C-alpha cells in the first residue's frame, strides 16, 4: 500500500493510495471544504468520482474505520475484541403514537426487554441519560443500547404499532 499526499495550489490537498491489488483511491480536500473521492480499478481507465460534504465524508470515514457498522436503520454495533468479543448494539428509533405520552419507567422498557434508553433527540435538543420519569412525545428519536437480541425484543414489544 503506497500513500502519498501533495498540496496542489488552488485546488487543495490530495491523498493518493495505491492498494496492494493495484487499485487507486484518491481523496481531494477541496478549498471549498468539500471532498472529492476517486476510485480507479487497476485495469480501468475511467475513474468513478463522488463529491462529499464534510459531514458525509466523516460518516464514510467512520464506516471505513470498521469500529462502527451502520445500516440504513441507523444501527451501530461496537465490538470490543479484547473483552472476549463483547458486542454492544446501539440503535435509533422514532417514537410513534403508541409510546407517546408515556414515561420510560411507566413502559418498563428495561425490565421487559433489557434495553436501556441512553439518549433522546427532540427537535434540535438532545437529552443524554434521561431520568426514568422522562415522558416521550411522538416524533422523538431515541437511542437504545443493548444486545442484538434484546433490541429485537424491544422492537417486537414496543415498536410494532
Amino acid at each position, binding site marked *: 500500500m503506497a500513500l502519498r499526499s*501533495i*498540496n*496542489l*495550489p*488552488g*485546488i487543495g490537498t490530495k491523498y*493518493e493510495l495505491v492498494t496492494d491489488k493495484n487499485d487507486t483511491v484518491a481523496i481531494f480536500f477541496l478549498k471549498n471544504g468539500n471532498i472529492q473521492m*476517486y476510485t480507479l480499478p*487497476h485495469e480501468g481507465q475511467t*475513474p468513478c468520482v463522488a463529491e462529499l460534504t464534510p459531514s458525509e465524508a466523516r460518516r464514510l470515514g467512520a464506516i471505513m474505520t470498521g469500529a462502527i457498522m451502520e445500516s440504513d436503520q441507523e444501527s451501530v454495533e461496537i465490538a470490543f475484541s479484547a473483552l472476549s468479543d463483547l458486542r454492544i448494539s446501539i440503535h435509533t428509533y422514532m417514537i410513534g403514537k403508541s409510546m407517546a405520552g408515556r414515561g420510560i419507567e411507566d413502559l418498563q422498557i428495561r425490565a421487559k426487554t433489557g434495553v436501556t434508553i441512553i439518549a433522546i433527540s427532540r427537535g434540535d435538543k438532545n437529552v443524554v441519560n434521561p431520568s426514568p420519569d422522562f415522558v416521550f412525545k411522538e416524533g422523538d428519536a431515541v437511542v437504545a443500547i443493548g444486545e442484538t437480541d434484546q433490541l429485537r425484543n424491544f422492537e417486537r414489544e414496543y415498536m410494532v404499532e
Partner: protein
Amino acid sequence: MEGLVIALFICLVLLIITKYWSWPVIPFYILAGIALGTSGLKLVAPDAISAFLSELGLIFLLFYMGLEIKPDRILSNQKTFFSSGIIDLNINLVIGFVASYALGFSLQESLVIASAFFISSTAMAVASLIENKKLLMRESETIVWMMVFEDIVLIIFLTLLSTSMSNPLFLIGKLAAVLFLFYVVTRYGKRWIQKVINREDELPVFLTFSAVICIAFVSQAIGLPETLMVIAFGAALASTDPRSFELQARPFKDVFLIIFFVFFGIGVDFSGGFPLFVIVAISALAIASKLVSGLIIGRVVHGQAGSGVEIWANTIGRGEFSIALASLYGSAVVSAAIAAMVIITSVIGSFTAKYSGTFSRLFDKARNKNKPSNGTMVN
C-alpha cells in the same frame, strides 16, 4: 452610480445562469460590459467610483495570487514545474509575439499581447478540473504546476513592463528595500499577525482590506508599481497564515473582480475599427499554440502526446490575468483584441475541457492505429 447598479444586476443574473450550467463566467461579464458600454448601448459609462472598485478588483486578484505562492511547494516539484512551464512559456510567448508583430502591432503592444496570449486562466483551469471531476488524471498535477509557473512569469512580465517606463535600477533598488521590509515584518511580526488574523471579530477582515489598500496607495506614492507590491505583500504574508488571509481576502477579490471584468468590457472601444481579422487570427493562434505546447509537454512530462491533448483542453481559456495585463498596459486596440481573445478562448476552452476525454482518446487512436490505446489516467 445607476450605471454601476445596472452592471451589478446584470452580473448577478449572468452569475446565476452560468453557475447553473457550469460555464465559465468571465467571458460573459466582458460581453455584458461591451454590450452596455462604449462599444454597445452606451448605457453605462465608467466613472470615478467604478474605476476605484475595478482597481480594488485587480489588486485583490494579485494579492490573492501572491498568497498562493509558496516556494517550498514549488521546490518539491521542480522537474514537472520547470519543464512544463518553460515549454509553455517559450512556445506561446514566441508565437504570440511573432503573430501580433506580424499583424502590425508595435513592439511594446506585441509584448503586451504576447503576455496576455501566453497566460492561461488559472481560475478557469482549476474550476474545470474540479467541476469536470478530472483531478485524478495525472495531467491535472502538471496543469496545476503550469498555472503556478505562469503566475510567476506574470510577476516577471509586470516588472519588465513597468520598468520600461522608468529608471530600472532605481526601481529595482526601491523594490528590494520594500521586499526586505516585508520580510522583516513577517519574520518578526509572525506571531502577532497569526494571532490577529485568527480573531473572531471584525479585526481580521478589516486588517486584510485596509492593509492591501494601504500597500497599493503607498506604492503609488513612492513610485513603485502597485501590482508588484500587492503580489509581494501577499507572498510575504503567505509565510504567516495564508489560509486565514485567503479566507478574509476572498470576498473582496470575488466581488471587486466582477466589477473589474464588467467595467473592462464597458471600456472596450471598437471605435478605432473592429479588427475582425486580427481578432480571429489571434484567437485561433491562441488555441493552436497551446495545442503545440501541450503536445510537447505531454511528450516530455508524461511520455505521451495524448496527455498533451488533455493539458491543452484544460488550458485554452485565457482569463483574469490577460485582462489584467490589457487593462494595465494595453492601448484601446490592444485591449479590444485581448478582450475578444479572452471571450473566444474561454468559451471554446470550457467546451474542450468538458469533452477532453473524447479528444485525447480520438487522438491516441489516430496515432497508434495498430496498438491499443493507453488511456490517460494514472494506473
